[in-house]
């Protein structure tokens, strides 16, 4: 009897195991309804969302790139209690910095945006076949990829040229941006998409300027139509947009106008409540320049409770868009190239196209009697005013070799390579940084 029980038990165990094993294959299948799988995205109905995601990823980090590079420049300074902000604002960061700092996340997302663009381009080709290279969707991701390289080159002294690649200097990024902008322009032209044609052409104008291809920069700048503007868009509500513009007016009172320019702000009304909008003055006329809106109610301090706080009121709230490029920037590129070519009247004429129109509405410069240095001084101040807190200033101080005279010696002239990229990229090692150059 005992043996019979034993035998039945063993068979029961074996049978149960067999049933269990054969049914487990399906039991253990789960799906995640919150996300797309790779194959689910290979669907023509989703491709527009894929390409918008790529562009959104670039725009999402664009405001942080602006904030971080401006913090390094002479336009804004740290008024926070954050060490990472102080590290950048004082220019004490160095290559292979020991912490991720405020800057690493910015480069990380720029690099991820580039990867997303490349991944999306491969998907478009997979799903659409030959039609992909003639589509607006491809124009969108190609242009975004090129812009990601351009912003990376402007902000960081080193980057990987390809995913997982070794360190390369910013000069190589500019060259690569020119090549990619050309590629994007060709696709956008074939797709008959003026929006992406202009954005790619404006990007190539800037990339050519920074790469030293001045004639090509002039040609591209002149090819961008009047009135063109491309902005990064932000929203106040994080459920309907990616997190808002980090350069907005108050920003927890953590970074405000650098003290170099405090005396250039008319604060005579700062005891009035509410304090009316104030502006940094145009240095040539001492008039308030509407392009540089700030706000400093009397006695207002940064969150560190020690530094006077002049908020950047150009962006009134978190939903304020940031101009990525425009015809007005193209006018400045044209002015710079003409100045470099020695055609000073043409340079001044290009500057006056911005200066005499809204929103500046300032008196025109007179070209008569101006030396090359005089024109350069006007070019520099116009670049600051027109592109105020749009992420250009540190690049200008660096390429015109003005960091020491404006900010002092011993300062980083660009942001260093992301620590996250150094640590996780098998083709990079710590201790191999060749930059940033120090003033």
């Amino acid at each position: 009897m005992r043996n019979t029980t034993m035998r039945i038990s063993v068979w029961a165990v074996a049978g149960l195991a067999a049933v269990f094993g054969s049914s487990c294959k399906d039991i253990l299948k789960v799906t995640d309804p919150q996300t797309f799988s790779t194959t689910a995205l290979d669907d023509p109905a989703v491709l527009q969302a894929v390409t918008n995601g790529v562009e959104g990823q670039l725009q999402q980090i664009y405001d942080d790139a602006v904030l971080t590079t401006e913090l390094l420049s002479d336009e804004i300074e740290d008024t926070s209690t954050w060490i990472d902000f102080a590290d950048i604002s004082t220019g004490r960061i160095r290559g292979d910095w020991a912490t991720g700092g405020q800057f690493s996340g910015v480069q990380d997302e720029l690099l991820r945006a580039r990867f997303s663009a490349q991944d999306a381009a491969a998907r478009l080709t997979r799903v659409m076949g030959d039609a992909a290279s003639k589509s607006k969707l491809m124009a969108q991701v190609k242009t975004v990829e090129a812009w990601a390289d351009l912003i990376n080159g402007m902000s960081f002294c080193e980057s990987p040229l390809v995913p997982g690649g070794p360190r390369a200097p910013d000069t190589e990024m500019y060259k690569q941006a020119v090549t990619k902008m050309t590629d994007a322009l060709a696709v956008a032209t074939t797709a008959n998409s003026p929006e992406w044609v202009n954005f790619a052409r404006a990007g190539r104008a800037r990339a050519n300027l920074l790469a030293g291809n001045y004639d090509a920069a002039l040609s591209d700048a002149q090819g961008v139509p009047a009135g063109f503007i491309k902005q990064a868009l932000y929203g106040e509500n994080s459920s309907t947009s990616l997190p808002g513009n980090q350069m907005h007016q108050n920003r927890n009172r953590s970074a405000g106008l650098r003290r170099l320019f405090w005396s250039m702000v008319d604060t005579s009304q700062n005891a009035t409540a509410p304090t009316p909008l104030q502006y940094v003055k145009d240095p040539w006329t001492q008039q308030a320049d509407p392009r540089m809106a700030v706000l400093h109610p009397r006695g207002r301090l940064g969150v560190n409770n020690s530094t006077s706080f002049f908020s950047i009121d150009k962006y009134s709230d978190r939903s304020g868009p940031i101009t990525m490029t425009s015809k007005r920037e193209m006018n400045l590129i044209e002015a710079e190239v003409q100045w470099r070519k020695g055609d000073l009247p043409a340079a001044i004429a290009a500057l006056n196209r911005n200066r005499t129109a809204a929103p500046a509405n300032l008196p025109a410069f007179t070209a008569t009697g101006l030396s090359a240095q005089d024109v350069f001084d006007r070019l520099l101040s116009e670049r600051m005013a027109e592109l105020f807190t749009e992420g250009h200033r540190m690049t200008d101080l660096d390429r015109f070799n003005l960091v020491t005279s404006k900010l002092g010696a011993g300062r980083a002239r660009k942001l260093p390579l992301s620590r996250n990229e150094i640590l996780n990229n098998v083709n990079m090692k710590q201790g191999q940084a060749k930059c940033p150059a120090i003033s």
Partner: protein
Amino acid sequence: MTFTLPFKKIGSDLSFGAQALKEVARLNMAVGNTFAGPGVSTVSAASTTTGAEGYSEKTNAGFHLQDRLSFGQALFTTFGVRLDGNSAFGENYGFTTYPKADVSWIVSEHGFLPSVISSLKVRSAFGQAGKSPGAFDKFTTFAARSVFTGTPGVLPDNPGNADLRPERTTEIEGGLEGGLFSDRLGFDLTTYWNFTKDAIVGVPNAPSQGFSASRKVNIGRVDNHGWEASINYLALSMKRFDWTTNLRLDGNHNNVVSVGGVILAGNAVREGYPVQGVWSRTATGFSVVNGKPVTTRSDTAVYFGPPLPTLNAGFGNTVHFGPFQAYALLSVARGASFSNGDRPYRVRQGGADELLQFLNPDGTSTFKADSVSQYWSILDAIETRNSARLREVSLTYTLPEWLSSKYKFGRTLLTFSGQNLMWWDHCHCFDPDMNWAGGDPFGIGSGFLAQPSPRVFRLSLRTRF
């Protein structure tokens, strides 16, 4: 099934079974902001509403087989094995097995021990257990996000890993417990080693290679070694008075043995050091530059210590005197460090005594104040969690039986107790046990904006009807 095997005094208790467990978690959230005024409280009555939804699904299916053998009344042993499959395992990974075995020997059953040893049991166990990955960690996914202003977008999300396996922990434990002098002195000693292999760690991609989420991988090995000891002693035993004292000690050492050659950012998981070890940069020098105090710091972080105590001790005493019972527990913790985020933050906010004491009477800064401020603007405050704490003191009164029964109550106890009454430490903080406010439970190496543990006084009445 229980068998009596054809051997004298040998028993066998065989058990087996199968189990399938499906866990589905759904999170539905509705948020309403800006109501017209008091009187309405539903989400739809708000002027702005948002919603969110989360979903997680995991299935575990397993089979187990175990046999417990007894050899007389003194020796017991168990052998078992468990076969598990889990929906979170990578597509390229199948089922896994977890064996276990234990043996216990009641030495005092044999009668050869000296009479002073009233009871003695020796035990040892070996077992393996697993921890499955997160529900969807294995999938390569792309997340839908709203971009620009209300436009749908899709972004790379999780890189996925088709080879993902469960973490496997092997534990070996041995110990003995017993009593001396007719169990008036009791003791319990245990030591254990556990080795976690294939620990699941999130390895970040190089940002240039996309996917913001870390890729979950099985790497390396983490070891834990620890011990526990306790002694109970009935020091005095009289008709209306007795006093019991208890001492409990435990220690643990954690060490990352290998990270499998993977380079991990930060120092949370670093070979040769405990998980979540406390690291920070240190001051390297002081100088005066342009009349301003300048402290410099090291380029790299140095190790300060483990985040959890390596030694805990508890000393408790219970005294009964007639209807009264008094109890007191003192605990000691040593060996843990943490980054006290509050200290530099208070200085940087201009509100710390160590800064304020150096300000001029009119509130303007001084060289010393600048020095303190600059020091705490570049350095973390690494503190020790070493402390002694009066955990509990209580006094209990048992109501006389005649009084309880008069009102038809059972045994009735009136207790007044105080918890967390006092502590002693060397930390520049409110409480060395503080953790990161609102942070995840692994943020044990730091504390910021934390409230001290409250002192609690409680008056309680317990009875039965």
